[in-house]
């Protein structure tokens, strides 16, 4: 959007952030706002893309609050990177870990039945382009997400004169 003639960068090249906060329920909203605001720097994201990102972050950070540290707040780290026209997000914790990741990714699987639906990881996977879950029981969990603009051309459009 910005022109190169006024000394600003012609387009966003690369940017990143690191957020660290305790796994308090109030920080679920905080983290999804922060990541959505960061993602909005990439003009190509549509409002639906941003909503997808908002939901995915909400799910992953909620999981840390509920599952990683069931006995009280522990550290959550959220990292974001805009690179090569897409957004990468990493949510990590040093909590309880996941014994069986494959099972955790199954729709409706939950270790806390009741009002939990077992859909958070399924939503995150469906709404993002890539999702990788790495977990070591007793040490923690790292979830890596990639979101590409839904309307992105495969090749950058040629500049016409």
């Amino acid at each position: 959007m910005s022109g190169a003639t006024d000394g600003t960068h012609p387009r966003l090249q690369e940017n990143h952030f690191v957020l660290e906060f305790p796994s308090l329920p109030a920080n679920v909203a905080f983290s999804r706002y922060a990541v959505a605001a960061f993602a909005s720097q990439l003009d190509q994201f549509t409002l639906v893309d941003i909503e997808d990102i908002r939901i995915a972050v909400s799910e992953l950070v909620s999981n840390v609050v509920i599952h990683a540290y069931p006995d009280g707040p522990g550290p959550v780290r959220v990292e974001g990177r805009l690179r090569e026209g897409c957004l990468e997000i990493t949510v990590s914790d040093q909590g309880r870990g996941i014994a069986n990741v494959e099972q955790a990714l199954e729709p409706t699987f939950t270790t806390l039945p009741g009002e939990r639906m077992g859909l958070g990881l399924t939503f995150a996977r469906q709404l993002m382009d890539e999702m990788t879950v790495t977990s070591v029981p007793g040490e923690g969990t790292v979830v890596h997400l990639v979101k590409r603009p839904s309307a992105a051309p495969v090749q950058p459009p040629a500049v016409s004169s």
Partner: protein
Amino acid sequence: MVNLEWVSTPAGPCLVAAISGELDLQTAPLLRTQIEGAWSQHPEARQLILDLSGVTFVDSSGLGAVLGRYRQCVLRGGRMALVGLQPNVRRLFELSGVLRIMEAYNSLDEALPLPREGGGRA
């Protein structure tokens, strides 16, 4: 966040719960406690309408709270209807499949009184 109102209908009292704001891990428990509190005032009530027109965001915690109220209603032999899902909220409800079992209406007028027969409309 949760505004509760009792409406009398031919089928008995109907609880209309108008929810506003974002329904997530922090706010979803309110939905449960407020509605459970209201039910205890009218134990004979069998109908619940959740007006979600003021809800701007929902995730699986919010969906879980809504599904929990639905299950409670069914256990009481009653029914529940949803009203006024904003497009982004509707999308997540659809992704989860819960709209296949729950009635959803555009307005309170359409939802009240709850029809006895037939499924919900978009």
